[in-house]
C-alpha cells in the first residue's frame, strides 16, 4: 500500500501539482518565483483537486547556476509556510541534492522527488532519516541539468525498469520505507521523443514491477514534438498521454494543469470501474 504523508493511498490516482520557485522554468517562466504568487498557486491547485504539491527551486534545463544554499532559500521556508497553511496536504520537494532534501524535510516535506536518477545518493539517506517518501527516476545516467544528445538504448523500457528498481531497492536498503517509494520513467530525461513515446506505450511493464509509478508528462517536449506545437499549446496532448498512462496503471501524475488532469483521471477511473459515475440516468428512467 502506497503511503504519502499521513495518507494511505489505496486505489486513488493522485495529482502532484507543480509549484516552481524558479525565475526561469519552461512552462510558467517565473510566474510563481515570488512567495505571494507561489502561495496563491498552492491555494489554487489545492482548490482544483491536487493531492500533492511539488515545490522546486531549480529548473531542469541547463541555465544559470543555482547552488544548494540558494535552492534551500527558495524552497525550505516555503515548505514550512505551506505546511502550516495545509496540515494534511502532501508536500513534495523537487531536488537532487541531499542537503536541500534535509532542509525541506526539517521544514515539513513528506516526499523527495529526485528527478535526476540518484545523482546524489545522500538524498535517499535523508528520506530514510526523516521517514519520508522518495521518487526514483530514470534519467539515463545524465548529470543534473543536461540535455539528451544522440542517446541510444538496447531497450529503453528495460533500462528504465532496471534503473528505477535498482534505485528503489537501494533506497530500501538504506532504510526508506518501501511503502513510500515511487518510480518514475523520467519522460524527456535522457530520452528523445521516440524513447518517451515508447516508455508511454509500454508503461504497463513498469507498473508490473509492483512499485507505484509516477509520471511527469506535463507540457513536455515529447508532447510538443509529437504534435508539432509550442509549449503553450500542449495541454490537450498532455491530457491524452495522461489517460494512456492512467489506463496502464500509473498512480501519480505530476502536472501543471490540475483541473483538467483531475477530470481525465476521474474519467479513466470511472471507465475502469474503480470509481462510481456521478450520475447515470440516461435510458434508466
Amino acid at each position: 500500500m502506497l503511503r504519502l504523508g499521513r495518507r494511505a493511498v489505496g486505489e486513488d490516482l493522485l495529482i502532484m501539482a507543480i509549484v516552481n520557485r524558479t525565475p526561469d522554468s519552461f512552462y510558467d517562466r517565473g510566474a510563481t518565483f515570488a512567495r505571494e504568487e507561489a502561495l496563491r498557486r498552492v491555494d489554487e491547485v489545492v482548490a482544483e483537486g491536487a493531492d500533492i504539491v511539488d515545490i522546486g527551486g531549480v529548473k531542469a534545463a541547463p541555465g544559470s547556476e543555482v547552488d544548494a544554499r540558494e535552492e534551500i532559500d527558495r524552497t525550505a521556508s516555503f515548505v514550512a509556510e505551506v505546511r502550516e497553511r495545509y496540515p494534511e496536504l502532501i508536500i513534495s520537494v523537487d531536488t537532487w541534492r541531499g542537503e536541500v532534501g534535509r532542509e525541506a524535510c526539517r521544514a515539513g516535506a513528506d516526499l523527495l522527488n529526485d528527478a535526476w536518477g540518484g545523482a546524489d545518493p545522500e538524498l535517499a539517506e535523508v528520506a530514510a532519516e526523516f521517514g519520508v517518501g522518495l521518487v526514483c527516476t530514470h534519467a539515463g545516467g545524465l548529470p543534473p541539468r543536461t540535455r539528451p544528445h544522440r542517446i541510444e538504448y538496447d531497450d529503453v523500457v528495460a533500462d528504465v525498469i532496471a534503473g528505477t528498481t535498482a534505485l528503489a531497492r537501494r533506497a530500501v536498503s538504506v532504510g526508506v520505507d518501501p511503502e513510500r517509494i515511487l518510480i518514475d520513467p523520467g519522460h524527456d530525461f535522457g530520452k528523445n521523443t521516440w524513447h518517451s513515446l515508447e516508455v508511454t506505450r509500454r508503461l504497463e511493464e513498469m507498473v508490473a514491477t509492483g512499485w507505484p509509478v509516477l509520471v511527469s508528462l506535463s507540457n513536455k517536449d515529447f508532447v510538443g514534438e509529437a504534435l508539432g506545437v509550442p509549449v503553450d499549446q500542449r495541454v490537450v496532448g498532455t491530457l491524452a498521454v495522461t489517460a494512456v498512462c492512467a489506463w496502464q496503471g500509473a498512480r501519480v501524475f505530476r502536472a501543471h494543469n490540475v483541473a483538467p488532469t483531475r477530470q481525465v483521471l476521474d474519467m479513466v477511473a470511472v471507465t475502469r470501474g474503480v470509481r462510481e459515475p456521478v450520475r447515470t440516468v440516461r435510458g434508466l428512467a
Partner: protein
Amino acid sequence: MIVAACCVPQAPLLLPGLTGGPVPEVEELRAAALTAVETVVGRGVDEIVVVGGAPHTRPYPSDAPTPAGRLAPAPGRPPQPGALPVPLAVGRSLLSGHPVPLILQGVDEHASPGDGRDLGLEIGARPGRTGLVVVGDGGARRGEKAPGYVDPRALDVDASIGDALTRADLAALVALDPGLCDDLLIRGRAAWQVMAAAARARSWTGHTLYGDAPFGVAYWVVTWLPTTP
C-alpha cells in the same frame, strides 16, 4: 586513389523516419547531403569508403542492422542487436540509391590524430577509384538551446572547422585538438583527420553545399574534388 570526397553530418535525424513527419530544416540538410554523395559517386568510382565515428576502429558489415530502433523505438522498429554505429548508418542511408560497393569504416571517436592518419593513409592507398564519404559534424555547445548548452569557445572553433573543410585545408584538420573537440562535443574530429590523410596525395577544391546549425549542432556538407591544374 581517392577521386572525390565529401563530408556530411552524423546527426541521427538524417536516418529515414526518425523525425516522424518531414521537418523542413532536416529535408534541406538531407537534400544537400544527397547531392554531395551523388557528386562523389558521379566521378566514376569503383567503391565508396564511408568513414564515421564508432566505438572501435574497424570495418563494419555493410549489411548490419540499422540503429534506428535504438534511437527511435516504435512498433515495427525494434532495437536490433549488432546495429551499425549511427555515423556509418547515416552514410549508408545517403548512399542507398546508388548501386556501388560500400566499405563501412569505423574510426574510434577518440582515436589519436596519429591513428587517424594511419587509417587515412591506408584508405588513400587503395587500388582503383575510391570515393570517400566522411560522416562527422561539429560542436553541440553553441548556445543556451544547444544540446550541450553554452561553451564560449564553440562558435570560433566551429567557424575554423567550417573554413578548413571548405578550403580543403588538410593541415588545419590534422591540427584539431582532441581534448578541445571533446569539450565542445565535436564528434567529427577523428573522421576528418582520417579524411585529411586519405586525401593527402593530391590537392583539392572544396565546395560547401550546407553550413548551418538549425538545432544547435554545427553541420556542414562539403565536397572535395581534385583541383584541375
